[in-house]
């Protein structure tokens, strides 16, 4: 599966958060490393979108659309700070 990065989901993140998010800093709930969301390892062909921490591979964001409703799982993200 092709690994992309957070730039590839910039539009989806904008839709969800209502603002530009790729330059925002996300903290991984698995290992605590804090990096720009643009650097996340992103897989688009999973069932939905999966974004993983580049340090420990922990799943930080999952986005799935079910019957027109977008479901966003951020349990793997401990914190997000706007740039």
């Amino acid at each position, binding site marked *: 599966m*092709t690994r992309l990065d957070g*730039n590839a989901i910039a*539009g989806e993140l*904008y*839709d969800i958060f209502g603002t*530009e998010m790729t330059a925002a800093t996300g903290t991984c709930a698995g290992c605590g490393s804090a990096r720009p969301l*643009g650097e996340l390892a992103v897989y*688009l062909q999973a069932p939905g979108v999966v974004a993983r921490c580049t340090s420990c591979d922990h799943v930080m964001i999952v986005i799935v659309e079910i019957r027109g409703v977008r479901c966003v799982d951020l349990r793997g993200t401990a914190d997000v700070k706007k740039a």
Partner: protein
Amino acid sequence: MEGTAVRRRLNWQTGTVEELVSETPRTRSIRLGLPCWSGHRPGQHVDVRLTAEDGYHAQRSYSIASAPEDENLVLTVERLDDGEVSPFLVDELRTGDELELRGPIGGYFVWETARGGPLLLVAGGSGVVPLRAMLRHHRASGSAVPVRLLYSARSLPDVIYRDELTRLTGNNAIDVHFTLTREQPVGWRGYRRRIDRELLAEVAWPAVDRPLVYVCGPTDFVETAAAALVALGHEPGRIRLERFGGTGGSA
């Protein structure tokens, strides 16, 4: 205060194709007239959406090739033979057609004069597109930041913006290096191998100069370049990456 700014939704808008330029046999630049465009930053992209007669949507992201200072928005698109959107944009789209898009999108893979430098740009194939927006912005803003571009393509006919980039080498602040990985013309004096640690050591500023680095291209290309840069001592925090998906082969 930024918190009080009105948040703008990322709305779809319709542009009109004003000009089409074939850059290489596989890429085409699309100049658009957009009545509601709010401006962009160099390195950002747009989402393009095609709608079939039965209502089916296909959506892809394309980097903006023009500088904010340019009069019109320009996208440069590479045809992926098994793609849903790019074959239409490269082969079927005509001047005067309408195109639905939203943007600008992204804020991480962005370079503006105020970020400073020295600036090292590393491109694989069509990964040169957002870097070209940065180069045009550099020139339009009269920036004195030293820039080096290392651009890897399969062959000379595959080099996008070839004339424009070749002309840039006359500029004191900008150095352009090409590497042709599959086929070189007779008498080629540029590089002729894939990007690796040795090539980056030769072209890049040493790590002690702390260049800002932007790498864009297919995933394998970007990861090879990033690993080599870190091995050469460049700070990961000063390296920004953008991976392109969907390409079968790498540059």
